[in-house]
């Protein structure tokens, strides 16, 4: 049995030169390599879209952090994706200020338009929908992010425009 487990267990992949370059740059700012763990996961995610077991093991090995400890960090933070996500991640604010201004019906609108619920990805792999805690933009609620871009004072029409914009980009 032990052989079967060994042969199917994920193994660390090779980090790319770009990933290593960026991780090394971050290391300069901290006295201990472990401090770069989260940043390294973000770097890997930037290039790979998400953090696979193979990526996590690679980062753990590279920074000499026990893999279970790094996994504890990876699963702790909202913005580290341990499952594949679509090309564009919609971070939809569902906290109180947005809720008071009607974010629930906007979320239903997105779900209807894209055919996905929270945690799901569209079949064309263009969008993943994830709820996000208060984005700190409450005076311009309802609000959401798509990738690094912030969208405010949302309406169903505005959401349709945003979706069309990203679809056009492909």
């Amino acid at each position, binding site marked *: 049995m032990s052989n079967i487990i060994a042969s199917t267990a994920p193994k660390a992949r090779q980090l790319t030169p770009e990933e290593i370059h960026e991780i090394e740059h971050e290391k300069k700012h901290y006295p201990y390599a472990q*401090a770069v763990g989260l940043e390294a996961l973000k770097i890997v995610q930037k290039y790979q879209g998400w953090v696979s077991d193979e990526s996590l093991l690679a980062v753990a090995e590279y920074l000499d*952090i026990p893999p279970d400890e790094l996994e504890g960090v990876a699963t702790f*933070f909202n913005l580290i994706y341990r499952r594949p996500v679509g090309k564009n991640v919609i971070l939809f604010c569902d906290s*109180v200020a947005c809720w008071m201004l009607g974010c629930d019906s906007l979320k239903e609108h997105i779900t209807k338009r894209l055919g996905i619920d929270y945690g799901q990805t569209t079949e064309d792999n263009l969008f993943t929908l994830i709820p*996000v805690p208060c984005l700190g933009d*409450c005076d311009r609620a309802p609000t959401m992010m798509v990738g690094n871009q912030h969208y405010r004072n949302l309406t169903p029409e505005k959401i349709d425009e945003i979706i069309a914009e990203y679809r056009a980009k492909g």
Partner: protein
Amino acid sequence: MSTNKPLTKNIQIGRAPFNFQQYQAAGGYESVTKALSMVPRDIINLVKDSGLGGRGGAGFNTGLKWSFIPEPDGGPRYLVVNGDEMEPGTFKDRLLMEHDPHLLVEGIITASIALQATHAYIFLRGEYKVAEQCLHKAIAEAYEAGMLGKNIQGSNFSLELTLHTSAGRYICGEETALINALEGKRANPRFKPPFPQVSGLWGRPTLVNNVETICNIPGIVKYGIEWYKSLGVNGQAGTRISGVSGRVKNPGCWEMPVGTTFRTLFEEYAGGMQDGYQLRAFLPGGGSTDFLMPEHLDLPMIPSEVAKAGSRLGTSLIMVLDDKTCPVGCVHNLIKFFAHESCGWCTPCRDGLPWAEHILRKLEAGEGSMKDIDILKEMCGYMAPGNTFCALAPGAAEPLQSGLKYFMDEFVEHVNHGCKYHKH
């Protein structure tokens, strides 16, 4: 030339923030020069006597917090600036970081001179992408100008400043959890004592301060206590950023004298309620504060005064609950947030919050019972200060306990008939 808006004098929405030269030409970085000529303990005493209270929500006297740092022993000492703004309904640090990043950098250098810190970190919320770019640029410019790095302005003082971006977790607002996160660990809070001033980041003396708190430092050092005290009203010192969200005519945040009343903020700055809506209640300073009612609007925004009314000033960004929005649903939304953001370390929080969320969901769905309301009341006690490892669950219990206090008839109505409010 002194100013009565030290936090926002350089801010003009719509134009790019000042670069180093522009900021310096407007009187920027003068507090660094002044601080370098002072005895560090004198700066700490100055900040203490100014009456500046922490702007992250707790309101503790900043200089007093600083004064607990031991004398230097030759090893590293850290200043960590908490820019992980994530309290529901709070959007003030974003304004400061996106529109005048050099004010924060100046504050960090001046504070570090006082604390004799060797390395400062800005712990920035991962979602704040614009703030990240602005701060990166400002820090690079400050290094280039010799305002950061070795022997700042030809003095013996050296300081490194690093921007750390997080990845979204409310608990990082708790300072020891933030320190764990910065060390690359899971962001569970630490046992106190020892306090971070004695044993913080990597076991070294560390101060953790909020962005807005640090932005107050340049003015205090440059213009002194008398000037700072002249800025406040109702016996208070300084200015702070307060704001309003919810169904008001003009939501936003503004710099105003400390001690301004909720009414001035709500009516004069935010323009009152939108037409067709009445003010039912408001959360005075973020999701983790107790509801206040319209009769509390004349209170000055002073921590002790707000405490007398049974709440906390918190971040002083108020969220208004209108008469057409369900109060039970509002509490449910808040508890759902806190349940999600619990770090899972201690039982009252890890188990209590999801349970409370479950009950509130049932009530919203019209499937609750009177027994459920009793359980919610009991749970506020389990999650009270002293029963949990950190302040997250007691904070979460605040809108729940005050919601039960002020809106009990609504809770009972939910048991009998379910939620009657229009779902947005």
